[in-house]
């Protein structure tokens, strides 16, 4: 069990040794985003920007325009809340900035709605050159951090506060824009991202189901070929995410299936209202994002 924010912290601190162009910026959350490890190891390449995310993002763009590979870190809610800076200074400038947004979704728990990244993917998905990632476990998070360091262009990496079970070992090889089919089943294909990958896996285990399960860890670009194949071979496609159903993975898959002219029904599991305080477990249950909730929703869709 590991939180993908921890995986990021470990990996970026390691990559800092190999690539002197990597710099990290944080806005007074380095202990939470886990950029603090890099800060300790490479103080001259770490910039504490204070509680001023707009300036942090613009500064990262300037560093990137000068050949650096900046990781700008905050909670997903706060970093994507500075949308105009991302839109102009990062995206339009084609600046090679890596935006790290931790504390994705309702699963952050007690802090409540104001700290939950719930519309972050929807916001950034509209930007033409933005790549978006959400790893589902430690190994994948490390590989995605390595990938974005080499892949030129703006990127948003959505990470979780909560720990998630292990899915992969070192034999796994993350492929940009290609979703990993974790289980090839039948009738229903569950396309999930982040925490919900684990909920969907648990549905098959706990309820003895044979649903196909897909880990959508690249949220942009999406895997259109796989969506086409899945929609041809299943009776129902279900997306699942700890994010608003508007703008996120559910929207992305809907748009794709509509453009494909697919006749296969699609249902979206996700958040549809404001988040609130509670334990992560209680919140996942409340928003029907745990295995029980996902299972109940699928049963309803199948009726």
């Amino acid at each position, binding site marked *: 069990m590991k939180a993908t924010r921890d995986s990021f912290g470990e990996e970026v601190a390691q990559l800092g040794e190999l690539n002197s162009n990597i*710099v990290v910026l944080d806005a007074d959350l380095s202990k939470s985003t886990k950029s603090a490890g890099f800060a300790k190891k490479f103080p*001259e*390449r770490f*910039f504490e*920007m*204070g509680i*001023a995310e*707009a*300036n*942090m*993002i*613009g*500064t*990262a*763009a*300037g*560093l*990137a*325009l*000068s*050949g*650096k590979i*900046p990781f700008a870190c905050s909670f997903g809610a706060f970093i994507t809340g500075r949308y*105009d*800076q991302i*839109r*102009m*200074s990062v995206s*339009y*400038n*084609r600046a090679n900035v890596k935006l790290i947004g931790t504390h994705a979704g309702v699963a952050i728990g007690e802090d409540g709605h104001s700290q939950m990244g719930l519309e972050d993917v929807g916001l950034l998905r509209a930007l033409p050159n933005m790549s978006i990632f959400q790893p589902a476990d430690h190994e994948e998070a490390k590989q995605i951090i390595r990938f974005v360091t080499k892949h030129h262009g703006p990127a948003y990496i959505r990470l979780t506060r909560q720990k998630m079970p292990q899915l992969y070992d070192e034999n796994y090889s993350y492929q940009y824009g290609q979703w990993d089919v974790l289980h090839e089943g039948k009738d229903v294909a569950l396309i999930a991202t982040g925490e919900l990958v684990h909920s969907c896996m648990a549905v098959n285990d706990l309820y003895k189901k044979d649903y196909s399960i897909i880990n959508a860890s690249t949220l942009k670009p999406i895997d259109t070929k796989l969506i086409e194949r899945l929609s041809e071979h299943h009776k129902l496609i279900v997306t699942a995410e700890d994010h608003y159903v508007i703008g996120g993975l559910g929207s992305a898959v809907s748009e794709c299936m509509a453009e494909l002219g697919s006749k296969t029904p699609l249902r979206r599991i996700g958040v549809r209202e404001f988040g609130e305080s509670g334990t992560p477990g209680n919140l996942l249950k409340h928003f029907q994002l745990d295995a029980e909730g996902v299972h109940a929703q699928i049963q309803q869709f199948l009726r």
Partner: protein
Amino acid sequence: MPHRLCIKNFMTRQPTSQKLEENNEALSRKLRANILKMIHAAGSGHPGGSLSCVEILMTLFGSVLHFDPKNPRWVDRDRVVLSKGHAVPALYAILAEYDYFPGDWLMSLRKLGSPLQGHPDVARLPAVEAATGSLGQGLSIAQGIAMACKLDKRDSRVFCIVGDGEIQEGQIWEAAMSAPKFKLDNLTVILDYNHGQIDGRSDEVMNLEPIVDKWKAFNWNVLEVDGHDCEALQRVLPTQVPGKPTFIVAHTIKGKGVSFMEGVIDWHGKAPNDEELAKALKELGQ
């Protein structure tokens, strides 16, 4: 091979200081005429704030910056980030003057497919440093560039031109706090203090005063200069204080150089018609 180019070494424009003054006058008129011609051809644009920063840009390119028009991305160049992106016709005019691109490109301003976008776009025109135009963002970008120069131990200096209306943006004050923290003595901000913005006089829209005290209080080295006096600009713009960024308040006149545009808010963002252009060009002796 890129080399540190200084205008003094390769332009014949200024053998003596007297001649320099005369030639500056001629160049400023030419640049102003080009600004108005291109905005007229485009049918839209921002003459007021472009005309007010002509001498600032002229002096930067004429006697302060190190640059190489043949290699606009030369790593050791000095940088100009035009944070008040709407004044980009002035920047295009000076870049054309230094042969960054052919002069006839100027008339393509704001036309479909042109590298000369309505606001600067570095992806289409590498001669500019950054895309700007959503106000308040260029200073943070300039700060990032200045940090990178420090990390790479380059001598390059970074100049960022901001507008007075622009510094009403909160992000400017975030950067005002952070640049002194990082001791960015290679960063100079030039305020084109022309006192005008779209909705009226800047002191009425949202008062900025006391501007010098504010930036001093934020730990900047603050200087004031007549933003239309090239000799004064030549003295002030290169100023550096170890360990501190510099903020230069350049007192300017919106629409400078054209009698019927000077100080008239209405000329913030409209193109001259045929008659107005002819009148302006006549005044400028073009």
